[in-house]
């Protein structure tokens, strides 16, 4: 017979006071926080709960800062071992901060680091009272990462089971997010009509759930799919619905994808100059957010367009800018093969366009 003693606690902060405390924490430099732990109420679960909520909302605006903040919180809770809250709350906060850090790393294309954080999240969530729900959220992030690593068959195989889990747990928004991956898989397989069907269905469900973020992000994905089909009116209509909401939510990742989607439309409809401008706009957005892999991917796309316009020197410059970033990332073998060809052709100043297209085709997925 064994058991641990469950700690009794004094009165915690109210949730409103927790939000104020969280804002004070975020306004305090990392190196000053440890000394101000008590004054900042940094060990109070209300503060931590509010911090996790704020970081979740900032994911689309500033994944790099979310990664840093989530890592700080994880390390703070983890060592020295602190008694946080009641029952399973320490384990929950370890899991949640690790999940936030992993999600941020995924957005930043820091693949190996993302997997380490996902393992840490699992270690925390495993001991929580509500483990099936938290583990399912983690499973979604893992599938999203696998999608970005082009493991499409595995993603498609595992998605239905995850959707079923979310439905059983009464988590309809999370179930709907899984359909995003399904739609994006169609985009990846060059099946834009099927993608349009999925994203239209997502829009209807998101509207019914009252989730304006999911609705706007789904319209953002519709721009991309309609763009691939060269359906200008539908793409413009989707952007008209997406942009105001995403701007209000300051979802910069989704807004960058909107510009990317519009660029695809312009390219498909033969407006190469305007397409380059739109790709540049998306690139600026990604640069601001710190999404270097996407910036590099767009360098390659723009290089391809410049070659189409006969601007070889400018295209080489674009490729040269992209190569160091691409090399820094750990890519799958097919990406590395294409990279070698592009690097070699850049050295000879005779660009192998097929290799370039294979490489930026590989990178195209990173935007999702």
């Amino acid at each position, binding site marked *: 017979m064994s058991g641990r003693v469950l700690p009794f606690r004094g009165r915690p902060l109210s949730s409103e006071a927790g939000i104020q405390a969280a804002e004070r924490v975020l306004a305090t430099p990392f190196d000053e926080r440890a000394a101000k732990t008590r004054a900042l109420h940094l060990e109070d*679960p209300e503060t931590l709960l509010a911090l996790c909520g704020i970081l979740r909302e900032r994911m689309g605006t500033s994944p790099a800062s979310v990664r840093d903040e989530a890592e700080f919180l994880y390390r703070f809770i983890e060592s020295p071992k602190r008694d946080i809250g009641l029952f399973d709350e320490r384990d929950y906060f370890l899991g949640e901060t690790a999940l936030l850090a992993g999600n941020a790393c995924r957005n930043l294309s820091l693949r190996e680091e993302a997997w380490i954080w996902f393992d840490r999240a699992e270690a925390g969530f495993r001991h929580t*009272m509500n483990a099936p*729900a938290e583990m399912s959220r983690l499973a979604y992030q893992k599938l999203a990462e696998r999608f970005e690593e082009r493991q499409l068959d595995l993603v498609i195989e595992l998605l239905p089971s995850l959707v079923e889990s979310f439905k059983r747990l009464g988590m309809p928004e999370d179930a709907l997010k899984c359909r995003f991956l399904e739609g994006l898989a169609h985009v990846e397989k060059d099946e834009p009509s099927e993608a349009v069907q999925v994203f239209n269905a997502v829009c209807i469900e998101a509207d019914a759930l009252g989730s304006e973020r999911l609705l706007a992000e789904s319209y953002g994905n519709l721009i991309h799919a309609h763009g691939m089909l060269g359906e200008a009116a539908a793409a413009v209509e989707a952007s008209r619905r997406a942009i105001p909401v995403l701007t209000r939510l300051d979802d910069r990742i989704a807004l960058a994808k909107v510009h990317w989607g519009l660029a695809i439309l312009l390219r498909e409809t033969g407006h190469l100059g305007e397409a380059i401008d739109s790709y540049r706009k998306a690139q600026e957005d990604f640069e601001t957010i710190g999404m270097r892999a996407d910036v590099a991917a767009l360098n390659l796309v723009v290089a391809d367009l410049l070659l189409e316009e006969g601007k070889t020197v400018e295209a080489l410059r674009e490729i040269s800018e992209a190569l160091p970033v691409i090399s820094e990332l750990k890519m799958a073998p097919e990406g590395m093969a294409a990279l070698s060809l592009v690097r070699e052709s850049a050295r000879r100043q005779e660009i192998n366009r097929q290799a370039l297209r294979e490489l930026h085709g590989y990178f195209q997925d990173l935007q999702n």
Partner: protein
Amino acid sequence: MENPSSKRPDEVQSVFALTVDVIHSALVSYYRLSDDEAKGAEEDLFIWFQRLSRRGGAGQMPPKLLRISLLSAACQYGRSFQLWKLGGEQSSDLALNEILAREPDEVAGDLDRRFEEERS
């Protein structure tokens, strides 16, 4: 930022209020906590439950699943508290030893079924 507590506090309060008698009864009659000990436990459980409902994975959960989590936490609390009081010794109370030997989640499942039956 949206105040998470404003999301569905009434629903959370309602789940707790409807379940608290079952919790009290389980803590006192199953796990043999005193009335005062059970009340202290219920205060902690209420604070914890309000925060549980604002976690990333619980924000959308329906009342039934929230209730099962609450009952499970209550049983874990009761079991841990009684084990601590016994200091590793067996109790002379056979029914208590029997309940302590069971998984808290299993006991919580029984309590939830009883709750459903009483309300139907």
